[in-house]
């Protein structure tokens, strides 16, 4: 039996312990103990629970990629004070899908995918591609809804893309020649709306000497690009303003050497490079074309070379883009090239024009194009679960029980020794 003095000390100690427990509760000790999530599929439920009743710490072990919603939720909890740590219970492969307008008149999308083998690019209708190797691939896809990559490790969805009307009219300007005619034909074949301004100057034609289907005025509201075929092509009025306000310009052959386009041109024109005999019918038919050697401007970027010589260069001019293409008489590729050269020539030309035009659409909503990279960006590198302070690991219910038990012990002790 302890002495009355010891009992008083015991009673004071019990009271102090009870007060300390209540103080711990009042000072904001967490309502719930740390929470651990062992599988990605359990994360949504755990996040709901941790939001309804805050936890001191959240430990996440991923076995697949979490979606953008869960990622944002975890990040919000961390900013609200929850200690968040994460790790991966198995290796998770990077997964990325990006989509850009291809710039072609059919509104096609240029899709690039980095995903593990066995992944599928799909849209709302079904699968588009199956990825057969752990590698980055790229290709074209028609505009559609619900575009995304489904991989064993998770799902990546690029921003949704909506095709909207924009000008796809291209004006081909040339002194009448086979090149101008075949460029226009190639672009028409690829779906571009083409207007031509082909001149046949001089002579005794009684009604003028211009052969044109071109409308009068260049405007980015109605035209996507202008193709100037050779130095002899007459420069349309307002061309510089058109390009600087966002229009595209392709300078073909020695057109880049014209003084009227010197301020826009990505390159000056040097001596010509002879064609490689027999190359027109080979797998690299452009080597069989004569080409002008281009000297790129410091602000330009070389896009294609023949040996050490630049034959295609590009630059920006305010809001517009300008391409200098040194090849001469590309129609010979179409006429004299190997099987399939009509399509190849047309596709090449369409790509050239597309590269200087704005995409025919607008982004309408955000997607989740790189969920693994975004997870790292949001939550940092994986780490071990942190060791929390003792108080932080105690549940409020335990603190309440300690407080009540302490007060009850002090009260009973006092009653047993006859003190009220």
């Amino acid at each position, binding site marked *: 039996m302890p002495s009355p003095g010891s009992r008083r000390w015991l009673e004071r100690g019990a009271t102090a312990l009870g007060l300390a427990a209540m103080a711990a509760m009042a000072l904001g000790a967490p309502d719930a103990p740390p929470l651990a999530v062992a599988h990605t599929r359990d994360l949504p439920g755990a996040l709901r629970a941790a939001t309804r009743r805050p936890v001191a710490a959240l430990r996440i072990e991923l076995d697949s990629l979490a979606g953008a919603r869960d990622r944002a939720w975890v990040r919000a909890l961390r900013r609200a004070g929850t200690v968040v740590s994460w790790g991966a219970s198995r290796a998770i492969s990077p997964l990325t899908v990006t989509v850009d307008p291809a710039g072609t008149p059919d509104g096609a999308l240029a899709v690039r995918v980095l995903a593990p083998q066995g992944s599928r690019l799909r849209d709302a209708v079904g699968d588009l591609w199956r990825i057969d190797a752990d590698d980055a691939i790229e290709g074209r896809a028609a505009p559609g809804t619900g575009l995304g990559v489904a991989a064993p490790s998770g799902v990546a969805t690029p921003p949704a893309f909506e095709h909207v009307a924009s000008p796809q009219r291209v004006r081909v300007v040339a*002194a*009448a*020649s*086979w*090149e*101008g*005619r*075949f460029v226009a*034909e190639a672009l*028409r*074949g690829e779906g571009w709306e083409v207007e*031509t301004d*082909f001149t*046949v*100057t*001089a*002579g*005794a*034609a*009684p*009604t003028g*000497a211009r*052969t044109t289907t071109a409308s009068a005025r260049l405007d980015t509201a109605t035209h996507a690009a202008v193709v100037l075929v*050779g130095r*002899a092509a007459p420069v349309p009025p307002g061309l510089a303003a058109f390009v600087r306000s966002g229009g595209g310009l392709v300078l073909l*052959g020695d057109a880049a050497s014209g003084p009227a386009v010197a301020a826009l041109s990505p390159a000056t024109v040097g001596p010509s490079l002879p064609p490689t005999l027999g190359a027109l019918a080979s797998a690299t038919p452009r080597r069989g074309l004569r080409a002008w050697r281009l000297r790129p401007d410091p602000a330009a970027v070389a896009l294609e070379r023949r040996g050490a010589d630049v034959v295609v260069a590009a630059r920006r001019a305010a809001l517009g883009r300008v391409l200098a293409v040194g090849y*001469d*008489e590309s*129609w*010979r590729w*179409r*006429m*004299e090239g190997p099987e399939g*050269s*009509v399509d190849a020539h047309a596709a090449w030309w369409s790509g050239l024009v597309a590269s200087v035009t704005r995409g025919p659409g607008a982004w309408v909503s955000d997607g989740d194009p790189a969920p693994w990279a975004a997870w790292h960006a949001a939550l940092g590198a994986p780490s071990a679960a942190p060791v929390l302070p003792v108080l932080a690991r105690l549940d409020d219910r335990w603190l309440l029980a300690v407080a009540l038990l302490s007060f009850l012990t002090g009260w009973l002790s006092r009653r047993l020794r006859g003190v009220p």
Partner: protein
Amino acid sequence: MSPFTFVTLQYESGDWDSAPLVAANVIDAVVRHTSLEVTPAGRQVALGSSELLGYPFAFLTGHLPVRFTAQERAGLRTWLDRGGFLFVDDHNHDVDGIFHKTVVEELAAVAGPLSRLPTNHPLYRVHFQWPDGPPNTSHELNGWGDNLVHEYLQGASRAGRLSVLYSNKDYSSEWNFHPDNKRFYAIDNTRFAVNVVVYALTR
């Protein structure tokens, strides 16, 4: 840019060289009336040869029956598919003539059936103006051949582009003279050839 070259097609059957002066006369007309760069002399190219792919414009004429070989048919089909423009003229000026019957069959087999070109076709306005359709030839007006004035030309298109132009107005006879003799004409009767060339180069 390479100059325009007037090509006369050689084919195995018939008489492909029945109007040997047409090339020089057309070249002369193009040089007189336009600023186009032109190869000074025409070329003769075999229809079935790969050389033809280097020349997107070709002229074919004759009096006699035309039967293309398999190689000629295949070569012509490929050439047209890639963008060639063929101008065919019946040197007989005879609607029931044997050249007309046979060459129309051959063209239909390779390029599809010929159809009538309307008088408002761009061919008649692309350089000189012929609001009433193709210009008549002196042979038609003199009542030679079938004693008819053929009021229209025919054509076959590929992907919306006129790829074969067919005439039975006998321009081959009309233009088959030495260009120096144009000085005796009040109006150059080869001006329509300029329209054909300019049309081929610009449409």
